């Protein structure tokens, strides 16, 4: 029983740590790792739930859920990485402040041909990890 609580508590702790890191750190990769840690915490909780005493076999349902959850988490991570790469490649590096600057004309209507943009070397990217 105490092992179950230990696992569950550790899971919740991991979730809290991940959440903290997600909110505090600016770098995107850190955020990504943080959210994966938080996800790992939730999976931990599920695994702890599956415990049904030393004699009974563990509940299979949470295991199935965790497996599904891992698949989802992997695809989400992949998408974040892919978008991050696109962001680095996107033209005109601009400060985050201009994302919504009202005067910026966002003519997303006529899709322009994607230019294979080169990232200007030396310009620090606001969302690349620094440390």
């Amino acid at each position, binding site marked *: 029983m105490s092992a179950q609580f230990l696992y569950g508590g550790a899971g919740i702790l991991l979730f809290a740590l991940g959440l903290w890191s997600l909110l505090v750190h600016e770098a995107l990769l850190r955020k*990504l790792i943080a*959210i994966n840690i938080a996800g790992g915490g939730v999976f931990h909780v599920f695994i702890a739930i599956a415990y049904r005493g030393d004699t009974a076999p563990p509940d299979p*349902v949470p295991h199935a859920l965790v497996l599904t959850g891992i698949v989802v988490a992997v695809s*989400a991570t992949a998408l974040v990485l892919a*978008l991050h790469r*696109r962001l680095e490649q*996107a033209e005109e590096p*601009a400060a985050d402040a201009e994302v919504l600057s009202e005067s910026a004309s966002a*003519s997303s209507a006529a*899709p322009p041909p994607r230019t294979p943009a080169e990232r200007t070397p030396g310009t620090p990217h606001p969302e690349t990890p620094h440390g």
Partner: protein
Amino acid sequence: MADLLILPVLVPLLGGLLATALPVRSALVGTLAALATSLSGLSITLLVWLHGDLGTVLGGWGVPLGIGLSADGLSAALLAMASLVALAISIYAGSYFAGSAQARHFWPLWLLLWSALNGVFLAADLFNLYVMLELLGLSAAALGALTGKREAIAANLRYLLVGLLGSLTYLLGVALLYTAYGTLDIGLLGERLGPTPIAATALALMVSGLALKTALFPLHFWLPPAHANAPAPVSAALSALVVKASFYLILRLWTELFAPITDIGAATLLGLLGAGAVLWGSWRALRAQRLKLLAAYSTVAQIGYLFLFFPLLASLPPGTARDDLFAACVLMALTHGFAKAGFFLAAGLVQQKAGHDRISELGGVAQRMPATTFSIALAGSALVGLPPSGSFIGKWVLMRGAFETGQWWWLPVTVLGTLLAAAYVFRVLSRAFGLEPTPLQFVTNARTEIPALLLAFASVALLGLAAGPVWAVLGFGAAPA
């Protein structure tokens, strides 16, 4: 008959796979799949309307292991709205993306999104809901970043992370529930759930995670940039449908599954956040310089109205008055779906024609596209809540409920929100009056203008003049007198 429930999820999924496999023909495949999906969704709604609730478990496994699907009035109503709106978006997108490389990426992602959306409406257990929510969030963020513009990618990356956080929090709540009650099936849980601390914590976790995804004030920070920078059909889908999916889940959890433990205090908290959303969202919409940003903030405000219903629902005993309020809330969500989709589609046309969407410079373009301007006017009047739109009826019932329950303080919020909405809609419409010449035809490009027009028209006339069917689908008696 209940086996048909899988179709609205399966058909777009297969269509998406096919569109991925045949990139050259993706538009054709996508349009056909959209048609089929829409038909399957509408037929489910029809079945629920005629025969009542449906439920099935896939693959012959028992309830706890197999994937359960079910449809009741609430899911049927939203499914019907999603089917119609998504079909209009698909037709519009076929022309909007014609000849563009984006089409190849659009169709598979769009069909995946649609599949996940229908999955959220039909899933019968909490974990499948999580999977569907994640799929929805992933495909939505990918679609939103489709233009490849920097600001679009940055905004949707933020949206993606926020969505992941929201889903994880929801999943943590699910884990707590499974710890306490040992099932994930909504039906079984509903029988077992009682007012325990663990259930309360689970509800708080799930609702706050979903509130993040549904952009409830002040957690709406990700929405305006993400919605305003997406391509027009995607903006329409994000604002009209995707946000509704998580709202649907909140409504379902709060009013059905967790009904034994929700109380007036927590509901008032949601109502207060809703009031903040109404006022702040409308104010920001009024101040917005760009048409699509205006529409995005208007979504924030409209989501706020939906949360105003919660404290009223919480303080009414089960009965006709409560049913009316519930139906009015759903009706407002449906109306907003139609109206906002129509608004975004029309705004996209204006943007395409003018090359920008700065409101102050739209005069000439607005006059050269009478049908599009008319769509904006119709959709705008539904957003304001003018009669005979569905949101007029929604606000009517909302205000009456506020009086009946003695919570008169929601009244000034509604009134002020309505005034602000009228101000921002007329700010756009007044640009359409000027001395620039108008073209020969009312409709200049049928394939894009007609879907927008029909959506806007549906929000005003269809849902307002015939609100009765909404009550009927939800399984309530006649519409309120």
